């Protein structure tokens, strides 16, 4: 989107355009054109009135003081990450209004861990017959044979194989 105006040489018209856009302070002018424009502006009396008008407007704009910094605002800005983290805690509290939200979360995590451990520790059962070419049933560790046998008989499975 941006690009410097193509300039091959400085002209009075270009200096007038710079004064009209950027004002009389050469510090505001594009760096690439500054030296040549300043040289022309200072030496050509034809630009004196434009320089004076631009300078007058600059002086008026400078009557507005620089807004003062606000240290309290900085403190508030720096607290934004903390507030964002708190907001998540607030959402959890809204979801679980019965006390500290870490308790049900910890319970869920513990239950998930127990499930994973039990799942890995449980023997795998493979049931096959004419209709079910292969099925894998995971059963509770306390009585895997009885559980699989019950399920197999209920489903009309002919062959039952227990893998230990």
């Amino acid at each position: 989107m941006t690009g410097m105006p193509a300039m091959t040489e400085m002209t009075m018209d270009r200096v007038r355009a710079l004064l009209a856009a950027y004002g009389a302070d050469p510090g505001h002018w594009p760096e690439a054109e500054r030296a040549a424009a300043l040289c022309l502006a200072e030496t050509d009396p034809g630009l004196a009135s434009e320089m004076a008008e631009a300078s007058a407007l600059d002086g008026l704009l400078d009557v507005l003081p620089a807004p003062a910094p606000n240290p309290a605002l900085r403190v508030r800005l720096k607290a934004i990450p903390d507030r964002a983290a708190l907001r998540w805690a607030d959402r959890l509290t809204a979801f679980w209004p019965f006390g500290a939200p870490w308790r049900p979360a910890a319970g869920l995590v513990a239950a998930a861990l127990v499930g994973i451990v039990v799942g890995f520790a449980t023997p795998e059962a493979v049931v096959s017959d004419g209709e079910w070419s292969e099925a894998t049933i995971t059963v509770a560790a306390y009585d895997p044979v009885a559980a699989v046998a019950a399920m197999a008989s209920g489903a009309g499975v002919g062959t039952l194989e227990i893998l230990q």
Partner: protein
Amino acid sequence: MPRIAEGDAVAYRALVDRHADRLLAFAERLVGDRASAEDVVQDAYLAVWRSAARWSPAAKVSTWLYRIARNAALDRLRRRRPTVDPESVVLIDPADGPERQLSVRQTAAAVREALDGLPERQRTAIVLVHYERRSGADAADILGVSVEALESLLARGRRALKAALQGRRADLIGGEP
């Protein structure tokens, strides 16, 4: 910025230290009052914290911040027009006499009012270049226009300001308007 995108609060706070004061000044000159400007800067930094991943290394960080602050200011301006309190924006030199102080105060209020009366893009262009001393290329980038278009905005804005403030300079220096 990549560290902020990963949730690094230390990097974020360094960004606050480096740019917050300038953004506050920029916002105050755009929206015209202190309280709204502080809201604008808070909105801008909240957006930075949440959306740092959207920053592209092709853009200067400061340019990106000004762009975010400008968008936040535009949101505020759409919701309401600012009210100007001359007491809040005028710097008075205690060495000046009462008449001179009144003149400076009135002139500053007139400048504030004239700036507020400009179309938003002209005002933003003048604030960026004159007050924030951004280069033409930076200001054009923040506004999303070419440098030629920026210069057109600046020239039209300055012409409108000159017309609105006709006579104020002479008044300020104690001469006839």
